[in-house]
């Protein structure tokens, strides 16, 4: 698989990317085409032989056409964008949701470009707002990796009236106090090599890289513990800026500015929303666009008439249109409290998102019971279940990817964790964590969700 | 009991042949069993009647059926005046006296569900005609749009059931693996089970008599063989077992032959008894009909001979 070594991919990609995207601009193509997606799938899957044929045509094109094609390439994403990596299970490029476990649940190690996700939440809890802030923070971090924030690589569009959303984004997790100190030391030691890695030579990045490595180590550890096939491992270094860990008790410093986040009011007439959105996307050409709709249809923000089908569903149809139109560099993340809505509105909403997950927080009694069981390991108490209704790419293709009550989530200071759910065994003895893990691994359906990513990887290898 | 004195299947047959006077035959169908096979059955029964003109009013049917001589497509349900005018143009005017020699007209409406609730009664009465039989389908599982301005007005289903002279409620003949409850559950999810909309199905016939009485029977119709079998309720079956006389009981009682052969029984069952015919008389139930026969010695000048 070519993405095992980043260098290889890049070489291959750079040449094909130009060529094929040029091919995509042939007259009979619609501008809807997704040139970034194209080259990667082209290099990975024989199915797009049509594109390869175009490639040949492309080579014979006169020089001026080539130049033109290259000029058009400018509004494409940089292939070295830190927030983009190929999905291990399909031919799509993905970007992280800011929550590595959610990325894992989505099986693509993130949200494939041109796709959208809806996080529903039952009850009055606000776990979804954490996920939307993580999603936003991750986008800002990408933007700041690239260089000066003004010329960055990523732009956030928030459909909300709540401008303070920008100030509430979490900062990057710097590890425990001990870790912070350690990292300071090692930073000193490895300054030179870090600088080599960082082409942009940004003074603030080395620190982040160091932290980031720690974050990856945690993840290593977790994955090994789970006995998971760590297909990601070989890519760890290639995509190390892909995924960050955030500390939700901290604030992102400096807070993102209007050059990084654009707020658009979702309660204007729909054409205005769409026009503004499209204008903003075009203004930030060749950037990754991350659209966030926190608390969709929150009654305090949305007037009653927006709850009509011709209000919210029409708006989402327009948004879906935009995401597909700019599918090579655009993703959307929405959250909603599902209790407020009847089945008709919910099914219509879900229908327009490419993936849908639902958080079902545990009731008080359940939490108390879990706390009792895990009294020696309070950090193991889960906060609720996560159900998957739709997965990007696969559900649309026709695969049945509904998994109910197979995942549990836990919100901690440094991480929003999602793990396989198994009802803990009430035991008077001190629990052995290893034994417990084995138990959960033996549950038949557990093989499924995690196994599928591993299995599907071999699938794409087969191609 | 009426059911013992005549064969109810005759009544159904008469309704389906349109010989029974019933200006509005309402077919209540559903996703589980549509009225298609029943309409086919009516067409089968009336095809020998060459003087019958079939007009098909299509709210949802896309293709003109072979048997229809006119196919009227309704393209605007919110303004039905035009549709009503077209239909009326095919009907003999009720006032004209020359209509008696006219052809009989069968007017099939594929679904009344599309007519707004407040226009339904008007629509049906405007196209009713003494020489036309109206066979209308209504999907009983089709939700009706509520009209908040007409809170106390009856629902379309209630209205049309009230107006109909015969109501044929159609329901599927269920296979053993499917019961009513499961069927309803699956259909509520719009998960249509297999084996519905078969050529064999059940109907419940309500026939309103001129006397004001209404008769109700259930039948199973096999539209491939064109047979109608009476479905007896559990109560009726019980009663029959108690009083039923079998041919054996009549054997050797007297020297007379009291029993009926199968052939005789069949012939007997085919007879339409006079009270059935009485329904087709013109509306004045008390009228005395006097027909001159050749032996009648009627003197016009004799005032005492006036039969009226």
């Amino acid at each position, binding site marked *: 698989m070519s993405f095992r070594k980043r260098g290889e991919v890049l070489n291959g990609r750079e040449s094909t990317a130009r060529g094929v995207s040029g091919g995509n601009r042939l007259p009979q193509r619609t501008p809807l085409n997704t040139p970034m997606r194209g080259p990667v799938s082209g290099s990975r899957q024989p199915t797009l032989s049509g594109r390869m044929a175009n490639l040949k045509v492309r080579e014979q094109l006169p020089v001026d056409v080539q130049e033109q094609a290259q000029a058009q390439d400018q509004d494409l994403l940089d292939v070295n964008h830190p927030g983009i990596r190929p999905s291990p299970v399909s031919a799509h490029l993905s970007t992280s949701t800011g929550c590595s476990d959610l990325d894992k649940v989505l099986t693509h190690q993130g949200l494939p470009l041109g796709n959208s996700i809806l996080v529903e939440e039952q009850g009055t809890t606000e776990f979804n707002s954490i996920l939307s802030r993580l999603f936003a923070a991750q986008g800002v971090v990408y933007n700041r990796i690239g260089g000066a924030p003004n010329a960055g690589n990523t732009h956030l569009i928030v459909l909300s009236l709540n401008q303070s959303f920008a100030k509430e984004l979490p900062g990057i997790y710097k590890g425990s106090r001990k870790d912070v100190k350690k990292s300071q030391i090692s930073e000193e030691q490895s300054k030179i090599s870090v600088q080599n890695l960082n082409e942009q030579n940004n003074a603030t990045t080395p620190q982040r890289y160091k932290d980031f490595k720690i974050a990856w180590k945690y993840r290593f550890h977790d994955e090994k513990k789970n006995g998971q096939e760590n297909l990601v491992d070989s890519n760890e270094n290639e995509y190390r800026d892909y995924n960050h860990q955030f500390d939700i008790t901290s604030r992102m410093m400096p807070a993102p500015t209007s050059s990084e986040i654009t707020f658009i009011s979702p309660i204007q007439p729909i054409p205005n929303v769409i026009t503004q959105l499209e204008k903003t996307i075009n203004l930030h050409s060749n950037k990754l666009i991350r659209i966030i709709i926190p608390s969709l249809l929150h009654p305090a923000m949305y007037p009653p008439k927006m709850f009509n089908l011709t209000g919210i*569903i029409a708006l989402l149809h327009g948004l879906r249109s935009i995401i597909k139109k700019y599918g090579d560099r655009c993703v959307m993340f929405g959250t909603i409290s599902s209790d407020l809505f009847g*089945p*008709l509105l919910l099914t219509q909403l879900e229908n327009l998102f490419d993936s849908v997950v639902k958080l079902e927080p545990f009731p008080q009694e359940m939490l108390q019971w879990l706390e009792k069981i895990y009294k020696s390991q309070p950090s193991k108490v889960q906060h609720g279940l996560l159900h998957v209704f739709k997965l990007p790419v696969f559900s649309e293709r026709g695969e049945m990817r509904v998994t109910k009550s197979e995942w549990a989530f836990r919100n901690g200071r440094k991480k929003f964790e999602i793990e396989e759910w198994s009802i803990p065994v009430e035991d008077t003895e001190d629990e052995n964590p290893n034994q417990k893990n084995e138990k959960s691994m033996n549950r038949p359906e557990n093989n499924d969700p995690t196994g599928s990513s591993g299995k599907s990887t071999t699938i794409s290898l087969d191609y | 009991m009426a059911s013992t004195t005549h064969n109810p299947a005759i009544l159904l047959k008469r309704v389906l042949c349109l010989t029974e006077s019933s200006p509005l035959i309402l077919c209540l169908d559903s996703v589980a069993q549509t009225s298609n096979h029943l309409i086919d059955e009516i067409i089968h029964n009336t095809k020998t009647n060459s003087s019958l003109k079939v007009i098909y009013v299509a709210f949802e049917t896309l293709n003109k059926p072979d048997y229809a001589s006119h196919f009227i497509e309704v*393209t605007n349900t919110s303004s039905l005046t035009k549709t009503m005018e077209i239909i009326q143009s095919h009907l003999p005017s009720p006032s004209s006296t020359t209509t008696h020699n006219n052809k009989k007209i069968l007017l099939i409406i594929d679904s009344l569900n599309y007519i707004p609730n407040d226009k339904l009664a008007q629509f049906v009465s405007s196209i009713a005609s003494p020489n036309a039989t109206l066979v209308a389908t209504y999907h009983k599982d089709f939700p009706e*749009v509520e009209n908040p301005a007409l809170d106390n007005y009856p629902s379309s289903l209630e209205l049309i059931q009230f107006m109909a002279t015969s109501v044929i409620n159609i329901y599927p003949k269920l296979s053993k693996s499917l019961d009513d409850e499961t069927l309803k559950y699956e259909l509520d999810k719009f998960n249509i089970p297999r084996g519905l909309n078969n050529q064999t199905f059940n109907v419940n016939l309500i026939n309103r008599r001129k006397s004001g009485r209404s008769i109700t029977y259930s039948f199973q119709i096999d539209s491939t063989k064109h047979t109608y079998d009476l479905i007896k309720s559990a109560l009726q079956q019980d009663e029959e077992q108690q009083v039923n006389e079998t041919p054996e009981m009549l054997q050797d009682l007297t020297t007379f032959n009291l029993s009926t052969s199968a052939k005789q029984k069949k012939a007997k069952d085919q007879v339409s008894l006079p009270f059935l015919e009485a329904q087709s008389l013109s509306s004045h139930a008390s009228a005395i009909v006097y027909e001159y026969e050749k032996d009648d010695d009627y003197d016009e000048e004799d005032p005492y001979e006036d039969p009226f």
Partner: protein
Amino acid sequence: MGDVQRQDLTIFNDQSALSRELFNGNAHNVILLTSTSSTQPFWLINALIETAVYGSPYSVNLSSPPSSSQLQQINTTASLTIGSFVHESQFYVNAFQKLKINANSYKILDFLTDFLMNHIINKPKLKIFQSLLELFPNDSTSTIILEQPELLFSLVDGLTSDELNELFIKPLAKRCGLLIITTSVDLYQKDYSMTKDVTEFMRFINSCFHISIAVLSLQPLETGRAKDITGSLKITRGGATSNHLSTHVVENEYLYLNEKDSTKLFY
């Protein structure tokens, strides 16, 4: 599932998935395809498109696309139009390239991209549907696939089911030999109650049933997710009579497995 006998997709009693008689120009036929969010119909739409173009659903049960020599367009004059309210045209272009369907044999009407802005805003209902209808070719031997027209309830202000039928669905059916309507039945899987909007949705799906000669229904298994089965494909008779055809719909139920971009049918 290698050892399980694979089944051909047949809908009509002449052993075909789509009988040629549907396209003979003598009648207008409708097939209703219902699906859920967990069993989406993309593969089946593809199979039906292949059948309309090549006469047989090659992609079903095959792990690799057939060679181009196998693919002989059965009717080069008949047209195929896809109108989708949920998918952009590139989505289908990519799929059809994969299926090796000749780009000249279909037309994609993208009712997603900029649809609201270009077709709906500031236009009266009648005008909207008139201009939409004109995008479809008028050819009674052609096939039209309409994906999720129920979305129009959310896009056109005050649209009722009866209007949608009269102004769009029925005129569309009259423009072709076979109209395939795909619609989601997710709502009915839930515990719904009758509201004004639900009434319109239910009236719509019911009237679609009554104009259809067949209903193809994709459903997940009642038992939930399974490794070797995606769901069931059920073929049942619709509410419209098929007396005008010499063939009729054969009721059937398949299990199917959709993975790695391919689909296998079995019992």
